């Protein structure tokens, strides 16, 4: 069965590259360019995994993460954080949530896809 990935990333170029890669690997991809849409789609689209950028306009990535993990409906969905930041404040904020499925990454699409595959392994 085709797995559905929700990608929440505000930079269009990065998003397109990621989508391109994931599609090529046979995933179904849903896109969101801001936190608000991302949160909505996390509920309506029922994704198998969420790729989340930490820096987002409007609702910040970490806030989106908190909301996803607090909502029992979306809480089980594994989240991979895409960030170009290595700032510990941000990492700390998210790691406080102590989510097993949370994977911090500063990787390229090829590596990220490998991680996704690992997380989604039955």
């Amino acid at each position: 069965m085709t797995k559905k990935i929700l990608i929440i990333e505000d930079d269009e170029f990065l998003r397109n590259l990621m989508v391109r890669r994931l599609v090529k690997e046979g995933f179904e991809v849903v896109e969101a360019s801001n936190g608000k849409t991302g949160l909505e789609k996390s509920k309506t689209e029922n994704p198998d995994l969420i790729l989340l950028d930490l820096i987002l306009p409007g609702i910040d990535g970490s806030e989106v993460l908190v909301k996803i993990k607090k909502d029992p409906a979306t809480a089980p969905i594994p989240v991979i954080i895409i960030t170009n930041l290595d700032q510990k404040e941000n990492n700390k904020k998210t790691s406080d949530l102590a989510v097993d499925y949370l994977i911090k990454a500063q990787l390229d699409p090829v590596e990220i896809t490998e991680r996704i595959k690992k997380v989604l392994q039955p």
Partner: protein
Amino acid sequence: MEDEKFQIAKEDLEDLEIYIKEFSDFLPLAVCSVNPVGVIINVNKATEDLTSYASLELVGEPMSTIFLDKNKVEEIEKEIANKGSIHGRELILITKDKKEIPMSVSASIRRDREGSYIGYFMGLTNITELKKFQEGLEEKVKERTKELEDSKKSLITTLDEVKEAKGNAEEEKNKTLSIITNFTDGLLVFDKEGKLSLINPQAEIFLNVKSKDVIEKSIVDLKTISFFESIIKIFNDGTESAAKQELFFGKNLILDASTVSIVRREKKIGTLIILHNITREKAIERMKSDFVSLTAHQLRTPLAGIKWALKLLLKGDFGEITEEQKKFAEEMSQSTEKMISLIGNLLDITKIEEGRYLFEKVSSDMEQVILSAISLYKEEIKNKKLKIKFQKPKNVVKVKIDAEKIKLAVDNLLDNAIKYTNSGGKLELELSCGIKEVEFKIKDSGLGIPKSQQERVFSKFFRGENIMKVQTEGTGLGLFITKNIIEAHGGKIWFDSKEGKGTTFYFTLPI
């Protein structure tokens, strides 16, 4: 009977005459008897000695014969006749051999039984010695007067000089005082007992106090004044040598406080605290950091885009590419990585400068931190065929550190050691534990740092001239960041190096 009486009286009289003659000859005072017309009728032995005339040569001569000023003698004679006596008149005597001798002359009138004027006695005293003495005295007085005048002059001169010096000193004092008063830095002077002896207006403004309320008060009394608390803290902290510290008074005032011991003749006589307002500098620094930070963050996303696109291009996601295209795409990829790491360093620097680089310090195992740093370089160590040795103590060394940052510090040192050591070289790492601190040492057999550049090793963007020729990579930020990390932990970092032989870096961290 009458004859007998007369005979006795005559004998008596003769005896008396002899007595008087002997007496007058014995007298050391020259005495002359003079008749009413001024003719000498008798002189004694002393007179002969004084004048060198024989008695017979003088008797019958006018009194004025033996004096230089004849008129004066006549005047004196008139005065004697009128007043009966004179005392201590000065006249110049002329001796037989024409010597002139100063005399003091006294005379007394002679009268007969009826009271008629029958002449006078005159006594002559040689006053040569006295004169000489007087003259000498006068000369001496003159000399002394001159001397006195001279010393008076020099005294006046000295006085003028003193006045001038005093004037200068006062002017200097006024100058100093007006400098202190108008100084844009706040100044506080504590005496050696720790009493506040001076506070300038700027310091009053900074600390929000009035001079009269705080002056002459001891540190203990001043503690109760809110703004003084931090001043007293630095006073206690840094009295030994010059110490600098930043003080925050709310959001709108940041002061840089320097504490300096005032030393006179090798004795400490007080402490000077200089308060420099750095609020504006701090604001600018923050703006600069914010700007760099923002710019760096903004650069990361497009750089990540380039990195990703190149990766996919190389992966063949955009179709087949030729070997040449692949080669260029790989080089572009490397350049992008370099830019990303440069931005990472820039961000680290802004963080260091903002003073918020360290996060929570947690008790961590130093050995693990070092091993995890080494593990990052396994590949490179293997490729360069470097021999690596890590000597560590038997016991676990736990130190309260920000492990991520210390790992970064070790990482930077290791990275340099590997980068600047030729293939087949040696790396020796050593961790040792003392009572108060742990020491980490990393020794390489690499290129070394030229002596002329050793001073600048820890400064931002420093890169050794010798390594630039062989290694174009590197940002020159690693050691700067490392030093800041170690110092933020209260540790020390240093090195020795010999060009061509290798370098050893050391750092210590307090336990």
